């Protein structure tokens, strides 16, 4: 059995080390492997994350607060005084063994979060970055699945106008008031409206959760608050998941840097819960609002003006452009400009652009889902699970279903998604597909003009994106590909011991 122990005492020159020695002897005598971290005055000899991850049980023989205690969260822990460690070391060891045996699931459950927070120390920056992104993605996927499927279900049973009924807006000539009090939705719109609202709320958490857990992966718990707030700001300013990605990395970097500042021991205890979150949240939030936000607003204005000025362009070019824009950021500012353009067309009686936007918004999740089936080895566990729900999300025109893939590997997934969406959008415009519904995917096929071509555009776009993403991901040299895929998936792996 693998045991990790921490010993500490007020002065840190005697008991700490006696307890360490006694525990080491007791564990050896009982046939266990033990690593002891002495938090004494001769410096903290920290045990490595790998050792902690591999431990079946943890012993704290400490009279003062164990430093960086959160490293051991989730493991079976037995505690005693430092004197227990010296005088009753064998007893502590057998208690630890009993705790591990009573709760073996704990040991492996702990591995997930414990490791998900720690990308290998010595890994290259690229591998670390991928580990951070995958941590954020793995925590975001449940929100994508739950929220997306609730919204899809709402469209299935409520029809294409559910969104307009709940959020307000014009649909097929009818104008709806937004429902201000969510508790009234059931009475006014019905169950579909409630499902839609719940799904929308869960979706509102996507970007904050992504950003929050990217920062958490980088800086541990002190990164959570700045990361979540950065994500909330990204959502609020319409910066989408790319904004959340940047915000999360920024928050993690600032929190990591602040945590490394040497401070007097009196203040040290306050750093992770108070000082670091406070300062990092203020700094990163300010940057997101003032520095990252305004260019995004300018970009949206410029794109909208540009699209509106494209009157003379051929409809195929317009379809290609709208389609590509839908996939550029999968729900971010550029996507929103294209979608708004389509919806504005519906309101003014021009139904072509809406159809182009809709098919283009459906292909990215569908293509990723197809790719995980055709080439499962190119994806890790989390992505394959995301692929399962991406079928329904894509079919329901919930482009966000592709975000887990894009967040984990933006440089390969986004170009592939753009290619297929542009093809789908262009084809829809070329074949005069129209849509009177502003949302709904395959569930509103009854409101589609030229439905056969509509389906053809979706299939072709899906095929193009799927082929492109498989091609791009396969081009990674295979050993490196296997390595980084392996380390990324091990952030999800239940047993971190599998990590090298």
């Amino acid at each position, binding site marked *: 059995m693998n045991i990790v122990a921490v010993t500490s005492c007020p002065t840190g020159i005697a008991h700490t080390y006696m307890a*360490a*020695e006694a525990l080491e002897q007791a564990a050896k005598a009982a046939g266990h492997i033990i690593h002891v971290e002495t938090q004494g005055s*001769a*410096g903290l000899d920290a045990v490595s994350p790998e050792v902690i991850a591999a431990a079946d049980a943890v012993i704290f023989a400490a009279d003062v607060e164990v430093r960086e205690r959160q490293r051991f969260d989730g493991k079976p822990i037995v505690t005693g005084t430092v004197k227990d460690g*010296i005088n009753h070391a064998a007893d502590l060891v057998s208690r630890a063994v009993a705790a591990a045996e009573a709760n073996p699931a704990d040991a492996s459950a702990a591995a997930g979060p414990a490791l998900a927070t720690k990308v290998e120390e010595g890994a290259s920056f690229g591998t670390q970055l991928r580990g951070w992104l995958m941590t954020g993605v793995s925590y975001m996927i449940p929100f994508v699945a739950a929220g997306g499927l609730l919204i899809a279900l709402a469209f299935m049973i409520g029809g294409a106008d559910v969104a307009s009924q709940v959020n307000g807006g014009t649909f097929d000539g009818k104008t709806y008031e937004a429902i201000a009090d969510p508790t009234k939705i059931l009475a006014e719109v019905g169950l579909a409206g409630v499902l839609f609202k719940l799904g929308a709320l869960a979706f509102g958490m996507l970007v904050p959760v992504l950003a929050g857990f990217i920062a958490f992966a980088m800086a541990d718990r002190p990164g959570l608050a700045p990361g979540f707030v950065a994500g909330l700001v990204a959502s609020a300013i319409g910066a989408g998941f790319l904004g959340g990605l940047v915000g999360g990395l920024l928050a993690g970097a600032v929190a990591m840097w602040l945590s490394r500042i040497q401070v007097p021991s009196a203040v040290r205890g306050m750093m992770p819960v108070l000082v670091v979150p406070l300062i990092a949240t203020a700094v990163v939030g300010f940057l997101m609002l003032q520095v990252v936000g305004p260019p995004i607003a300018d970009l949206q204005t410029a794109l909208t003006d540009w699209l509106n000025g494209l009157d003379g362009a051929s409809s195929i070019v317009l379809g290609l452009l709208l389609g590509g824009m839908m996939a550029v950021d999968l729900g971010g500012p550029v996507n929103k400009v294209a979608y708004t353009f389509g919806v504005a067309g519906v309101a003014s009686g021009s139904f072509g652009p809406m159809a182009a936007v809709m098919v283009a918004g459906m292909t990215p999740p569908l293509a990723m889902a197809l790719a995980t089936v055709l080439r499962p080895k190119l994806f890790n566990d989390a992505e394959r699970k995301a692929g399962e729900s991406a079928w329904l999300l894509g079919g329901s025109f919930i482009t966000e279903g592709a975000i887990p893939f894009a967040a984990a590997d933006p440089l390969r997934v986004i170009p592939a998604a753009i290619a297929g969406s542009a093809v789908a959008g262009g084809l829809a415009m070329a074949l005069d597909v129209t849509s009177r519904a502003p949302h709904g995917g395959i569930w509103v096929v009854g409101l589609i003009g030229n439905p056969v071509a509509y389906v053809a555009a979706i299939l072709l776009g899906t095929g193009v994106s799927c082929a492109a993403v498989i091609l791009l991901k396969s081009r990674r040299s295979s050993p490196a590909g296997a390595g980084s895929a392996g380390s990324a998936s091990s952030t999800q792996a239940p047993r971190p011991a599998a990590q090298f």
Partner: protein
Amino acid sequence: MSDVITAEFVDLDLPATDKLAVTRALAQRLADGGRVSDLDGFLADVAAREEQMPTGLEGGIGIPHARSAHVTEPTLAFGRCREGVDFGASDGPAHLIFLIAAPDGGGSEHLKILASLARRLVYASFREALDQAPDAASAADLIRKEIAS
């Protein structure tokens, strides 16, 4: 770096009094040897540590200790008391008393020596050897060798 313990810091026949008197007797040796600059200041630091939690350990050991500004070099004083002195251990009085003096903010090399001494103290064989030591010089030798090993 001076030796962490020499014969002059060993007293194999401490009178059975109380832990304050025993600690003072050992500290006096450190002061006489120039390792402690202010005897009363150092004793106050030791007493403060002792108040947090008694330093008596099972097996007849007392390890009064402190990190103190009045310590010039990390040093160990060792005393033996046949009758025993109460250091607050649950199983009875201490027969072997180690007074550990560490300078405040001392270099970590020095502190590592004290750490390795502390680690040796948990071995019954080491304690028995000290129990049997015939004179101060051999007790000091024994301790220095154990730390070096």
